[in-house]
């Protein structure tokens, strides 16, 4: 008799992703997680920063690609570099702190120093190397970096397709998302960081999951005005989820808020009436007031870019895998760079209302995901069902689409996962 564990081991990685379901082991198997670090996170484009996070020469941000610490830094010629945060001598990190500004990177252990582009500039007491140290070979390891719409991506895979090809139809949604600057450049102005005890793909799925919203976020919906509550009652509405290829997808929840520069004549929502008054009092023209107020509430869609970044209504959602059952999430707030202070205050307050460990939304999401991971330890031969909206899925110009609460975006992500993991 074959026991369940043997049956599970008989499944190849490819078998574990079906058209309408994925195997539970994708959430729970540490060996699969180890492979993901290599075959997913070290083999595709991974988002590392928004350009506004490193605004000036010398500005840097520390982050991770998979589990590897990297520095994202702007050099004196404004070129962005993504460097492994590891001294080439004996491996100590050369840069600490989440963000900052520097002229160079100096290893605290023996003083090897590197310029902003990663080149090894000097080592103390070089005489012991008898002029044989290959300084040109010992710069900080530099990754391939490309940028689109202010979003900076890096990759360990040097021969990968250009970023713009990888993004494909997602690009037009990125352009639409950036319109929430309301005529100003968008700026990342801080973030909420939190962790939950669960697999990273649970969060990846959630960004394209409209189905959970009315239930998990009931307490949030009870805390907003009637008009906003009605706007957020999108399950069963005319929105849709579209597979954009390469694991990317968009979930349109509020179709009238796809393009924030359209319908500027629409009535100003009552929750923004006071803000509109304040802006008028500050002498902004009627058109400016309408554009800014419309932008403050954010876009009506979530764009999921595989594997680690989402443009989610009014913020960036970044996910970082820590372990098979531990994931870190950053919700970065977006403001209008140089925009009216009252409008930016409104954006900050809206972000605080829903996001973060003390928000009215995030902790409930987090609790639900924790419950998924806990439940996934039962029934190791069972599957995660992803067949919602499959019957109604139809081809589109950019891919395939189904209704707003369809699991089309999750299916898209898992097909990309399968492609990378079985390559």
């Amino acid at each position: 008799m074959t026991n369940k564990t043997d049956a599970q081991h008989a499944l190849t990685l490819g078998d574990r992703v079906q058209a309408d379901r994925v195997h539970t082991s994708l959430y729970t198997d540490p060996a699969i997680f180890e492979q993901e670090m290599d075959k997913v996170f070290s083999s595709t484009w991974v988002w590392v920063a928004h350009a506004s996070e490193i605004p000036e020469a010398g500005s840097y941000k520390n982050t991770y690609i998979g589990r590897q610490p990297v520095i994202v830094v702007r050099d004196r010629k404004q070129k962005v570099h993504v460097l492994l945060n590891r001294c080439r001598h004996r491996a100590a990190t050369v840069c600490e702190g989440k963000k900052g500004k520097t002229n160079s990177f100096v290893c605290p252990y023996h003083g090897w120093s590197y310029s902003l582009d990663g080149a090894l500039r000097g080592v103390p007491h070089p005489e012991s190397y008898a002029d044989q140290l290959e300084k040109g070979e010992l710069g900080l390891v530099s990754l391939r970096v490309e940028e689109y719409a202010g979003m900076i991506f890096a990759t360990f895979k040097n021969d990968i397709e250009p970023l713009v090809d990888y993004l494909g139809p997602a690009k037009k949604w990125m352009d639409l998302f950036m319109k929430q600057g309301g005529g100003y450049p968008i700026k990342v102005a801080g973030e909420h960081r939190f962790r939950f005890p669960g697999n990273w793909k649970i969060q990846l799925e959630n960004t394209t999951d409209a189905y959970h919203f009315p239930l998990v976020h009931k307490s949030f919906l009870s805390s907003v005005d009637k008009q906003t509550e009605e706007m957020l009652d999108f399950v069963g509405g005319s929105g849709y989820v579209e597979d954009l290829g390469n694991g990317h997808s968009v979930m349109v929840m509020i179709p009238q808020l796809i393009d924030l520069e359209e319908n500027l004549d629409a009535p100003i929502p009552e929750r923004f009436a006071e803000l509109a008054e304040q802006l008028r009092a500050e002498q902004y023209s009627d058109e400016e007031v309408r554009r800014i107020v419309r932008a403050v509430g954010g876009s009506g869609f979530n764009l999921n870019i595989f594997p680690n970044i989402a443009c989610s209504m009014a913020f960036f959602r970044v996910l970082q895998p820590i372990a098979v059952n531990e994931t870190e999430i950053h919700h970065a707030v977006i403001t209008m760079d140089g925009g009216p202070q009252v409008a930016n205050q409104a954006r900050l307050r809206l972000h605080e209302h829903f996001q973060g460990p003390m928000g009215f939304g995030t902790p409930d999401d987090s609790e639900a995901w924790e419950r998924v991971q806990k439940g996934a330890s039962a029934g190791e031969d069972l599957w995660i069902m992803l067949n919602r909206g499959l019957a109604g899925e139809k081809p589109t110009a950019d891919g395939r689409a189904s209704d707003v609460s369809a699991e089309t975006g999750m299916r898209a992500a898992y097909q990309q996962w399968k492609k990378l993991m079985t390559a």
Partner: protein
Amino acid sequence: MNTELITQVAAFIWQEADMLDHGEYAQWLESWTADGLYIVPIDPQQTDFANTLNYAYDNADMREKRVARLGSGESISTSPVPRTVRDVSRFRVLANDGSNVTVRCAQNLREFRKDVLKHYTADVTFELVRSGGSFLIKRKIVRLINSTDTLQGIGYIL
């Protein structure tokens, strides 16, 4: 050192702590001035809270909503409601003009929910306004010592 003032503010702040640990929110909501703000910042050096991202920046309306959410049963992260016990100590009066008192203190809070015990340590600054024989809270700023790290959900009031 004005020990009489320390005693007055300590008695008020201990009462507030006790209300929060025992869920006496109706009375807690009445402990504030109309323009009172409950703030939990992220950056420990920050002083311009209105123009930066915080964990919480609650005016009267948001405080009421936070209390309502906690008791609504609609939020899975606060059902069951976490139990808390907090110690407040190390009171120091930073300013006192007769009607307004600014006091800084240390808060150590233990939270238990489901199967996890957590510990949060914070510097708390109160701006109190004399009212009747007691005070009202104009500002309560809770600076968690690990505010820049990743946190998990905190559904209750610090």
